């Protein structure tokens, strides 16, 4: 008899369904990493997710745990309300760049300032996906979008914002790191960071955010592989991967 080992299966934290995401979009990858981490930590049954407005507005259809759907940008405030009255639950937000870094700037910054004991998964793909490819706060200088048709002119439209760096300056932030989903090695690093961000919350250590550089082939008009190359060649230089804030007690965590 041949001994067989299961090396890959659907996490229990995932629902058995297909997603609405475009081919080559990394939302599915990011979702799966979160689901694997919840499974591995055994916290699915006490987890409450907060979905954003954007492409991942239907995230709650894909996760097998309690979920609420926030207004655009307000997920950190809604998560705060939940966490404050249900401190024993694990509460996380899953937000895109328009949601978190544009309309929801006040909510994310103040959640960090309060050291709110929540986990934030931040998807940065440099564009508004759901509304059809408009300029995001993270759109790179010169990048053409449907609302910057001649390319982002920083003199007129302002500069892209680096959220992980910005939040790292806040005393209430315990963990702020940027990872990328453009290849398997970086996906593995992303998962480790997500695990650490949830461990931070489980130990009551405060605010943790993982920024994930992501692809949007549809709106950037790339093939899936070109979209991954775009992350590596264009986004990573502007948004360097790394640990921007790891509080000493978080550093000491064995994950």
């Amino acid at each position: 008899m041949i001994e067989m080992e299961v090396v890959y299966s659907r996490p229990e934290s995932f629902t058995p369904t297909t997603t609405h995401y475009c081919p080559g979009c990394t939302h599915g990858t990011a979702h799966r990493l979160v689901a694997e981490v919840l499974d591995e930590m055994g916290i699915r049954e006490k987890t409450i997710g907060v979905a954003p407005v954007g492409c991942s507005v239907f995230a709650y259809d894909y996760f097998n745990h309690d979920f609420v759907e926030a207004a655009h940008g307000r997920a950190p405030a809604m998560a705060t309300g939940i966490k404050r009255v249900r401190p024993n639950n694990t509460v996380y937000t899953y937000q895109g760049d328009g949601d978190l870094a544009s309309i929801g700037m006040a909510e994310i910054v103040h959640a960090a300032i309060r050291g709110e004991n929540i986990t934030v998964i931040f998807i940065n793909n440099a564009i508004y996906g759901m509304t059809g490819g408009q300029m995001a706060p993270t759109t790179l200088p010169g990048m053409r979008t449907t609302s910057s048709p001649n390319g982002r002119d920083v003199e007129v439209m302002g500069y892209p914002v680096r959220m992980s760096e910005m939040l790292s300056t806040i005393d209430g932030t315990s963990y702020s790191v940027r990872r990328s989903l453009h290849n398997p090695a970086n996906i593995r690093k992303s998962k480790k960071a997500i695990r650490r961000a949830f461990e931070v919350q489980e130990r009551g250590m405060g605010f943790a955010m993982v920024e994930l550089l992501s692809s949007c082939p549809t709106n950037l008009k790339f093939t899936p592989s070109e979209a991954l190359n775009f992350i590596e060649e264009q986004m990573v230089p502007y948004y360097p991967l790394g640990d921007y804030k790891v509080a000493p007690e978080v550093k000491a965590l064995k994950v």
Partner: protein
Amino acid sequence: MTKELMKGNDAFAEAAVRAGVEGFFGYPITPASEFLEYMAKRMPELGRAFLQAESEIGAIHMVYGAACAGVRSLTATSGPGLSLMSEALSYIAGTEVPAVVVNVMRGGPGLGNIAPSQSDYNQMVKGGGHGDYFPIVLAPATVQEAIDYITLAFDLADKYRALVFIAVDGNLGQMMEPAELPPMRGLPEKPPEWSVYGAEGRDPNILTSIYIDPPDEEVTNIRLLKRWMEIEKNEILYKEYELDDAEIAIISFGVAGRICSSALRTAREEGVKVGMIRPITLAPFPTEAIRELSKRVRRILVVEMNTGQMLNDVKQAVGGNVPIEFYGRIGGITPLPDEILEEIHRVNQNTEDIADGQEKVQWLERLEARIERGDQ
């Protein structure tokens, strides 16, 4: 229990605590700030959640989150804050979770002022936010009523999974008067089954206001409307004053209604057969009671501390049965009983028909003449 002398905002906050509020999220704004300050001390004493948010937007979305988590939660604010909250109010209504908002009203529009007003009537009664939804609005006239209606507000919010406003005129928040608080209620042992608290041994609960397929949204809109019709059937509250033999009737709410009630007493002593309906629920509005009343009086006087926002709802109820007159003080000015008494006498003697819209033209002429004379 005995009566105590209490400041309005403090008493309302304690009433909320005793009604079992487990999450308070607010932002300072005059004339509602004492509510927040009271909760800042009181909630941590009881191990309940208190948080001063970064903005009214933050505060109400925290209320929304706590409401989804199945606890009684509320905020207290005033007009400019309520405007910022409109977004979440629509989401709360669309998600069908219970929440209570106390609006201690001040003069507007814009920054306006911090004096008492009733100018947020439409903002609350007509919803304020986007989409088809129907909040319940309760309008107390005394500190005691506000205490009682805060308890009622939570019960209604839970019963219908609805958004409930308490429309408090600024004076009530700031004034001190004797009132009795209800006993402390126990907290529920388990969260409501529909709420999010972790899917242990059950399918996940998902709370959302998105129905991307129009047929699903249509069904949701129908459900919300039917629930509202149920509320209209069961929950209308109003107070009647001296209506048995009344020949003219006042319709007025909140503090304006309270001032009218003292003018009414004097007018009665002076032989005027005047009565009053004071709506307690501005929504659902006591349309039927006012319609019936309009069949047996010869004239109606609507008094508000705004430019006639409830007036439109009264007109709809009266349906042209009798002439309607209007009197309002605006901009944060509270009318005096003598002013209303003068109006009662004038209305009592007036036999002329009033074309629709002319009641406001005539009121403005009287008001501007009063301002010209330098009268209060």
